[in-house]
C-alpha cells in the first residue's frame, strides 16, 4: 500500500508540476499561450453552481455518487496509510527473529519431500505477533488424491517449521493439478 500511496503522490506532484509550467506559460504569454484564452469563466461558473447546489442540498444523483466515491476512496487510503506496515522478519519470541526467506526455504524443503509434489512455491508473511502466515502452492499430477496430499503436505510443513521453532498462525496449502511436462520435476 505504501507503494500505491507513493505512486498517487508522484502522479499528484507531476500533475501539479505540469499545471505550474502551464500557468507560467499562460501568464507570460509565450508560444501563443494567452491567459485570456483560458475558459476560466465557464469553469468558475460551473464550480460556483456545484458548490451552491451542495449548500442548498439540490444535488443530482450522479453528483452524490461522485462525492460518496471520493469520500470512500479518501477513507480507504487513510486507513491503509495509518495501518502499520508488516514486519520484515518473522518474530519467533522476544528478541529472536528469522528472515522470511529462511522460513520459505524450510517450507519448500518440507513440501518437496512429498513424492506427489512436482514443484512448489511458498509465500511467507511476517506478523506483528510472533509467527507467520504461510501460503503454499504445490503442483501435483492430474488424478492425484487432493485431500490426502493436502493434509500430508500441511503436516510436513507444520512439523518442519515447529522443529525449527517458527510459530505458524495460518497455514494454507493450495494444490494445483499440472502437466508434469511443464513442471520442474517430472518423476519422483
Amino acid at each position, binding site marked *: 500500500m505504501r507503494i500505491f500511496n507513493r505512486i498517487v503522490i508522484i502522479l499528484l506532484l507531476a500533475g501539479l508540476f505540469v499545471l505550474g509550467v502551464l500557468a507560467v506559460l499562460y501568464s507570460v504569454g509565450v508560444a501563443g499561450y494567452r491567459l485570456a484564452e483560458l475558459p476560466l469563466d465557464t469553469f468558475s461558473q460551473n464550480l460556483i453552481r456545484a458548490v451552491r447546489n451542495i449548500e442548498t442540498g439540490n444535488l443530482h444523483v450522479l453528483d452524490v455518487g461522485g462525492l460518496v466515491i471520493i469520500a470512500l476512496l479518501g477513507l480507504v487510503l487513510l486507513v491503509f496509510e495509518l495501518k502499520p506496515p508488516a514486519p*520484515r*522478519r518473522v518474530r*519467533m*519470541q522476544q*528478541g*529472536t*527473529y*528469522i*528472515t522470511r*526467506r*529462511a522460513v520459505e*526455504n*524450510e517450507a519448500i524443503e518440507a513440501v518437496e519431500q512429498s513424492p506427489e509434489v512436482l514443484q512448489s512455491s511458498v509465500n511467507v508473511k511476517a506478523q506483528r505477533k510472533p509467527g507467520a502466515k504461510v501460503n503454499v502452492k504445490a503442483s501435483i499430477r492430474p488424478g492425484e488424491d487432493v485431500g490426502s496430499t493436502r493434509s500430508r503436505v500441511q503436516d510436513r510443513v507444520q512439523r518442519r517449521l515447529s*522443529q*525449527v*521453532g*517458527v510459530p505458524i498462525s495460518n497455514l494454507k496449502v493450495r494444490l494445483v493439478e499440472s502437466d508434469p511436462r511443464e513442471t520442474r520435476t517430472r518423476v519422483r
Partner: protein
Amino acid sequence: MVDDLQLARSVSEAVLAIGGVHSLGTGRYAEAATYGAGEKVSGVVVNPREVRVHIVVSYPLVEPIPALAERIRQQVASRTEGRPTTVVVEDLVEVEQGENL
C-alpha cells in the same frame, strides 16, 4: 568502556564458538555490520540501544532456534554492557553429521 568495534568483535567470536551456529549472516537489504576506522565486523550490529547478531544456523538443528537464541544471549550478555541482544536467523545451512559439533 569498550568501543563498538571491539564489542562487535568480541560478540562475533563468542557467537561463532557456540555449537549450532554455522556462520554469521551479512544482512539482506542492508549490510549487517559494525564499522570502524578501516575495518568492519560483519554479522554483528552494535548501536546504543541494542546489539543485533545475524546468524546462519546449521541444519539438522542441535536444538530449536529459540533455545539457541537464548544460549547466544547468555553467552554474550557479559560483553554487551547491559544492552539487549536481538538474534536474527538469516538462513539454515545443511551440514554433514559431525561437522556441527
